[in-house]
């Protein structure tokens, strides 16, 4: 009988019920869209930040080489500490943070004499990975996981990147290119003199691209790691590794600590200032989106409260009749709350579906991220909508129930 009473009552007020459902739907759509975006927001934003370059530098514990990222000193290059190239894949295999590793690029530095177009310039040649497949790691596409400068840097490149394994080509920083009038296609002669033996070795490198790095790398030459190792007779060794890692959920400091514990011979440091700003911004923006979702639900509550309040007041006579016929307050309240909950559920369901679609559009069109379907938003939005609709109805129902049936029925 309860279902029959509630069903008949709702069927008799199709327009009023539809209006209430619409009020819930609008709020639920806005809330679920924001919730949907907020669910993937931190991951996506952390990924966006990785476009700003690496945020962790790994160097040998004993190494004091003064290369790396601005503001972080690892000492002098003349102190020859090395990391084994074969250890690098350990970074991607870290149990807790492996999934947060976007990529890494090793660097082997050496002072060389560069010659082109009649000019000799002393500079640093860095051997590195550009887009290097790690044979023993599998990427999400099922192929070998690829890492290197191309993946972790935000450099602007005129020309093209050096292909992996190509030992005869290089890229040069924009500053050096200007100094030596180099352009893509130019031929560069580099000579390395071993400080221990005094022996020199020379290599001809074809310039494929000019890199604008915005840092000290603008004066360097970059070639494949294997070629650099061969030139300086340091096979399988690198000086430092730059790592790009997502700073959500773990912080860069946490990841650096895990790298150190996995590779005891190295020292890993995060770019503290940047990673803290990233974490703060991700957290603050995440909070903002959550607040917008909360405000949307709050606005829904007000709209639903107004609609429900009017509806309940219009039904005071009906409540009076039910009470006169013998209905207790709880029984009448449960009928009205059931109606409100059904309105909340219907509005919440359709609103959540619309909001999920809207969230995907926002992700794609506004942020340029891949659209993600967040199924958890559906039950969450429905539960919130039911709660809001029931809570918004509670006060007008309670007020209507407080009025004695005699005075309600006297009004006709």
């Amino acid at each position, binding site marked *: *009988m*309860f279902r*029959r*009473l509630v069903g*008949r*009552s709702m*069927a*008799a007020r199709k327009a009023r019920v539809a209006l209430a459902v619409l009020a819930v739907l609008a709020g639920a759509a806005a809330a679920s869209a924001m919730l949907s975006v907020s669910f993937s927001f931190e991951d996506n934003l952390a990924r966006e930040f990785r476009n700003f370059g690496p945020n962790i530098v790994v160097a040998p514990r004993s190494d004091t080489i003064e290369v790396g990222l601005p503001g972080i000193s690892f000492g002098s290059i003349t102190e020859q500490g090395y990391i084994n190239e074969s250890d690098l894949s350990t970074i991607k295999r870290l149990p807790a943070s492996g999934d947060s590793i976007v990529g890494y690029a090793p660097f082997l530095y050496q002072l060389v004499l560069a010659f082109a177009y009649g000019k000799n310039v002393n500079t640093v040649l860095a051997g590195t990975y550009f887009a290097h497949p790690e044979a023993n790691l599998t990427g999400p596409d099922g192929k070998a996981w690829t890492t290197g400068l191309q993946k972790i840097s935000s450099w602007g490149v005129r020309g093209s990147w050096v292909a992996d394994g190509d030992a005869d080509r290089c890229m040069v920083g924009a500053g050096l290119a200007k100094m030596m009038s180099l352009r893509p296609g130019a031929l560069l002669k580099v000579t390395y003199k071993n400080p221990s033996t005094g022996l020199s070795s020379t290599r001809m490198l074809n310039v494929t691209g000019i890199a604008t790095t915005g840092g000290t790398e603008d004066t360097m030459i970059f070639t494949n790691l294997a070629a650099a190792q061969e030139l300086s007779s340091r096979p399988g060794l690198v000086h430092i590794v730059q790592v790009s890692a997502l700073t959500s959920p773990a912080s860069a400091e946490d990841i650096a600590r895990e790298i150190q514990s996995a590779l005891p011979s190295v020292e890993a440091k995060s770019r503290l200032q940047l990673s803290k700003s990233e974490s703060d911004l991700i957290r603050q923006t995440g909070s903002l989106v959550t607040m917008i979702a909360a405000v949307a639900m709050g606005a829904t509550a007000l709209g639903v409260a107004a609609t429900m309040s009017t509806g309940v007041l219009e039904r005071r*006579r*009906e409540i*009076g*009749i*039910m*009470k*006169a*016929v*013998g*209905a*207790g*307050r709880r*029984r009448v309240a449960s009928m009205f709350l059931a109606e409100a909950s059904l309105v909340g559920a219907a509005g919440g369901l359709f609103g959540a579906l619309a909001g999920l679609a809207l969230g995907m559009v926002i992700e794609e069109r506004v942020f340029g991220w891949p659209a993600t379907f967040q199924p958890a938003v559906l039950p969450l939005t429905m539960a919130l909508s039911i709660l809001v609709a029931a809570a918004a109805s509670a006060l007008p129902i309670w007020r209507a129930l407080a009025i*004695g*049936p*005699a005075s309600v*029925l*006297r009004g*006709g």
Partner: protein
Amino acid sequence: MVDAAELIRVRKLTKQYDERTTALDRVSFSVSGGEWVSVMGPSGSGKTTLLNILGCLDSPTSGSVKIGDTEITGLGEERLTKFRRENIGLVFQQYHLIPYLSALENVLMAQYFSGVVDENDARHVLEEVGLADRLGYRPTQLSGGEQQRVCIARALVNAPRLLLADEPTGNLDSENGRKVLDLLEKLNADGHTVVMVTHSNEVASRSDRLLRLVDAKLVSDSSSAILAQERPGPERDRPASPRPATKKDRLKKVGGT
């Protein structure tokens, strides 16, 4: 079925809405089980207030109202509601049916609130009031008389001891009014105690007793036979045709005051 023991005992019943408005002023009377009592008086004399207090829909300011063994004036809202649904059936001038429910569902609703839903029983009550062929009709599809009979069926379905009727024929034409009064008379003959508010001498003449209220005070408590000696007043209700002879016989049977 007729229980001649005192069913209602009202003593010094007073109801004040505010300092200036007194609806009932120290009203005292008793009603025996199986009696049919009419309450008459001009508008604003306190008739409906009295009925609302007897029906546990309103609370008095002071005084005592005992129905059966229960003193209802001290009961809280929930206990009043429980007492009402177990002991009292209400018949309204304006029927007060739920518009989106059928005749059967309006009756079932009253059962539902009392905790036991028996559709066969509800159908039977509607058949008794002559609405066997109107079970699925909504109030808007029924005539005034039919709506009033649904209202009476709803009042009867939980087998109350006391029927309270507030101008039950007030909105009906004479034919439908007569049918409703015939029905009330039958229910009374079956043992139901009836207290009925009316403006009409002719309607009141069907009852055993007549209580007259004027300016919130009970000014007379007499046999309704006295109405036969009075000149008919202006008809404020459209009355059903009276059957005083039948009433006189029943007065003897019930042994009214």
